[in-house]
C-alpha cells in the first residue's frame, strides 16, 4: 500500500530537523529511525514502561503514544539534549553518582521524567519523588537508588543555583 507521507518539522534538542513520514509514524520511531537519535528507547510501545519518555514543549510525554505528524512544529527534548556543553546535567550526574542504573535501558525515560519533575518541584518529598517515577519501569535497580538520585539531583540543582 502506498501510504500518504507528511512533511514534519521538529525542533529537537534545539536543532530544526525535518522528516517525511506516514501518518502512523510514532514519534519514538521518527526520532530513532528518521532522525537517528537512538537515545530514546522503546520498551513496550503501549505506554506502560516509560522508556520512550521525551519532553514535548518541556512536558514529559510518551513518544510511543504520540504521532510525529501531530507534533509538527513543536519542540522535543530527548536524552541527547539534557547535557550542556559536554557536561552531564544535574539529573544525569546524580544518576551516575547514586548508581541509579544498571542495564541502562529504562534510563533515558527516567532522566527526561525526572528533569521535568524537578523543574516543577525542586525540593520534592519522598512520596512526591516516588509518584514522579512510578510511571517508569526499571527491572534492575529496585528503585532505591533511583529515588536517591532524584533527591541528589535536587541537591545538585540547589547548589548550582537551579542551573
Amino acid at each position: 500500500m502506498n501510504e500518504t507521507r507528511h512533511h514534519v518539522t521538529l525542533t529537537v534538542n534545539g536543532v530544526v530537523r525535518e522528516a517525511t513520514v506516514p501518518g502512523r509514524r510514532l514519534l519514538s520511531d521518527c526520532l530513532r529511525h528518521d532522525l537517528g537519535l537512538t537515545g530514546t528507547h522503546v520498551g513496550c510501545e503501549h505506554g506502560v514502561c516509560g522508556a520512550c519518555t521525551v519532553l514535548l514543549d518541556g512536558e514529559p510525554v510518551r513518544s510511543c503514544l504520540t504521532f510525529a505528524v501531530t507534533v509538527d512544529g513543536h519542540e522535543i527534548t530527548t536524552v541527547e539534549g539534557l547535557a550542556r556543553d559536554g557536561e552531564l546535567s544535574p539529573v544525569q550526574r546524580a544518576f551516575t553518582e547514586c548508581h541509579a542504573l544498571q542495564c541502562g535501558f529504562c534510563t533515558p525515560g527516567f532522566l527526561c521524567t525526572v528533569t521535568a519533575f524537578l523543574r516543577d518541584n525542586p525540593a520534592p518529598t519522598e512520596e512526591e519523588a516516588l509518584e514522579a517515577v512510578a510511571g517508569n519501569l526499571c527491572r534492575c535497580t529496585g528503585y532505591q537508588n533511583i529515588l536517591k538520585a532524584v533527591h541528589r539531583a535536587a541537591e545538585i540543582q540547589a547548589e548550582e543555583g537551579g542551573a
Partner: protein
Amino acid sequence: MKPPPFGYHGPATLGEALDVLAEAGPGGKVLAGGQSLIPLLNMRLAAPAHIVDVNRVPGLDGIEAGPSGVRVGALARHAAVERSPEAATAQPLLRQALRLVAHPVIRNRGTVVGSLVHADPAAEMPAVLALLGGSVRLASRGGEREVLAAEFFTGPMESALLPGELAVSAFFPALPPRSGTAFHEVARRHGDYAVAGVAAAVTLDEDFRIAAARVACVSVGPVPAVVDVTAACGPRPAASVGWETVVDAVRDRIEPEGDIHATADYRRHLTGVLAVRALRDAASAARGEES
C-alpha cells in the same frame, strides 16, 4: 508493535474537522490525547480507516469554571484540569479523581473528554460524570446536541457518540452548598486501572443531616454504576450515620465479573468497603472538615 495504516487528517478548524468526520462516517476516529487510542492501534486492536487529529483545532482546550460547574473542552489535558484551581473550587471531585488517572506523564497528554468517549468501565472520568449527572456536548455538521451521562455510556467502551460526531466538551455540574465528594480505588499497581473504585457525593441539610448521598462504582459493570444511598443513610446527622448500613445497598446494585485480576466476589466485597470509605470522606468534606 506499530499502528496499522490509516488516512491521516489534521483539520485546522472545527468546521473542517466535522466535514472530515462526516465524510469518514463509521471509519473515522478522532485523535485527541491518544493515550488510549494509540495503544489500541499499536496492539492492532483497532484499525480505523481514517484518523481525524483535532490537536490543531483552536478553541477546544478551554476549562470554564463557574458557580454552576466546570465545562471542559475536548483538548483540555488531564493535567491542565487537575492543576486548575478554579476547576478544583467549582467541582473538587475532578481533581480527586484525576490524581488516580494513570500516571502524571500520561495525564500530560490524555484528555478528560477523550476518557469519557473511550468509556472504559474501569476508568475514573466516566464515573465522575455519571455521579454528578453531567453531560457531553456532541457536534456534527448538522448541529450540536447535549447528552446526559445516563444516556451517554451505553456499554463497555461504547457511548452514544454517532459516526460523524465530535465530542467538543463535557460539563461537570457543581454540587449544592454543604456537599462533599471523595474517590477511593484499589489497583494492583499504582496508576493501573482500578480493580474496583467508588466516587461518592454527600449533601447535608441545614441541620447537617444527610440530604442526599450517592456513589458511582467503576470496574463492576458495563457502565459506571450509580447507586443512590440516601434512603439507606436516612435523614440522620452525618456524624452518626453507620455507613456500613449502605454496604448491602451498593453490593446489590452492581454486576461485577471475575477476571485474571480479581474474582467477582472480591470485586463486590471491595466495592462495599470502598463505598464506606468514600462516603465517610465525602460527608467529612461536606461538614467542612479535611478528610
